[in-house]
């Protein structure tokens, strides 16, 4: 039986997108402190916009441009083997929302990955 997830936070980072499991998010806040910006996954020189949002986890935080919560149950498309180690092993799978495929990542792992050095470290 295929895996499903219920409740994902769809995040927009520039022109790209990613999704975080709602259970990983403790709260949404305004960006403050040394939290990594998710845009650096796609562009090393990306800057945090003014209206960015900070997704807080219990041990980590991640800044994205905008977000919305998708409460319906979604099929979690598994990660191919060749991609299991990318982005520090933070990729959990993919969900399809509104005819778009959203990569689902672990918030703490991605934050750690970004704090560790970004895409080069992966």
């Amino acid at each position, binding site marked *: 039986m295929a895996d499903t997830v219920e*409740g994902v936070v769809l995040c927009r980072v520039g022109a790209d997108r990613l999704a975080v499991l709602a259970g990983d998010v403790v*709260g*949404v806040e305004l960006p403050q402190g040394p939290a990594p910006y998710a845009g650096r996954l796609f562009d090393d020189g990306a800057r945090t916009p003014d209206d960015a949002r900070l997704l807080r986890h219990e041990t980590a935080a991640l800044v994205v441009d905008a977000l919305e919560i998708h*409460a319906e149950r979604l099929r979690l498309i598994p990660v191919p083997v060749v991609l299991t180690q990318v982005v520090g092993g933070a990729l959990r799978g993919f969900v399809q929302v509104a005819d778009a495929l959203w990569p689902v990542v672990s918030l703490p792992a991605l934050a750690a990955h970004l704090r560790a050095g970004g895409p080069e470290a992966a």
Partner: protein
Amino acid sequence: MSEPSSRLKGRSRYLTNHSTIAVFAGIVIAVAYAAVAIAFPPGTRLAFGVVLGVSALVFQITGDLFEQRRLRTLRGLGDGSVPFTRDALATAAREVVRAPDVSFLVVLALLGGGAVLVSVIWSVVVDVPRATVLRLSFIGVAIAPLTAVMSNLVTWPRARRVLADLVDAGLPVEAIYAAVPARFELKPRLVLFAGVATLTPLLLVSDMAVSRLGQALQADAGDMGALPLAVLGLLVVLMVIACAALVGSVLGAPLAELAKETERLATGDYGTPRFVPGEFEAWAAAASIAVLESDLATTTRRLADAASNIVQSTGELSEGRVQHLAAAEEQSAALAATTSTTEELARSARQIAVNAQRVSELAGGTLESARAGKASADQFTGAMQAVRVGNQAIADSVVRLNKRVQQVGRIVEFINGIADKSDLLALNAELEGNKAGEVGRGFSLVAAEMRRLAESVMQSTAEIGRLIEEIRDATNAAVMATEAGVKATDAGAVLATRVGEGLGRILDFANLSADAMQSISLATGQQQQGTDQLVASMGDILVSTRAAADASRAMEATHAELLAVTGALESVARGREDSR
């Protein structure tokens, strides 16, 4: 030519010789008459002859000495004791002129006084009746005037010759006439001569008649006979005739000379005056003729010189006239050209006057326009000031509006902040509701709706923010535009003020220009009048110049005639000089 002193030597004696002869002649006549008319007492004739001879000799010597003393200058010139000077010659001339009168007086005194003295002495020497003595004295006194007149008349010709000798000796003719003033005594002299010539025979005839009457009354008186009486009468007649002939000869001689002189002058033969000796009026006439001849000669010389000068001058005049004619023709041509130019100038002056009048009118129009422009500039300055005040009010209003907009912006930002927080709260609520599962689904929906509302608010506030930004930009632009407008208005006001000042100066200049143009118009008008008068004057000058040229041509004939006249005059004058 002999020396002057030799010419005058013995001339004093020459003058007085005739008076001596006259005295003896008178004595002879008186004695002859007495011998006929008086019956000498016997034995008295010798005494009478001795007394008469001695007295005559004494009186003759005395009279001669007297006369010679009256001619001492002439005698001195003759013997060389007096130097030959002009004054000495003039003095001698005066002595010579007086000599005949001196002779007359000497003869009259010697014969008259001598007869009385001889009679008295004779009566003292011998016994002679008183009547005889008186009658003898009477005969001497009666004969004396006639003898004196005769002496006077015969001395005149000699005096004339001596005067001529003085002239030959170097006394100028003008000087001798000037030295001896004229005496106009011809009439009394003629009366005297006529009286003497008439009375003397009458006295003698009367004496004879009385004597014959007395003899007729006295029986013892002897008969004188007819022959002596006839001889006596004939002698008296001869004396009167001789006296008249002598008077006529003596007085007529200078008149004849004067006639010859005047005839010589009439024929044009004049130059140096000639001396014409004479007496009384003849002397005055001769002096006048001499002066006339001298003046005439001087005038003739001057006339000759003048004729020569006229000939020379007319020659120069002829040359000058030719040059003048050419110059006059050139001047006429130049004046014609000048007149044409002056007329052109007059036309230009009239055109200038018209233009000046037009410019003056334009200056007046410019003045009015400048005044209107000044008024408009003043109004514009006022309007600019009003615009500046309005712009300033607009700027203040815009500033206030900007402040209000900023306040609204802050409010909107505040609302936006609330909406943002509301969005976060709704997002967190939705997240929590989603975490709660089915239980929290309704909560999530509400949270989602709230979130949408918050996002809608945020969109609205963003829109409002954009509008506020636009308003802010617009108000800023309006503020800037208003400030620029104020600055432009200020600049415009300054420019308007400058324009007003400039127009004021233009107005002043226009005033001055109008006055100047009016003056120029008047001056050009006067210039036009002056130029018109100049044209008229040039026309007159041209006419005069042409007339002068015509007159110069007319002078040609006159000049030829003048040359002919002056030539004739000069030939006459030169001929006179050559003839001398």
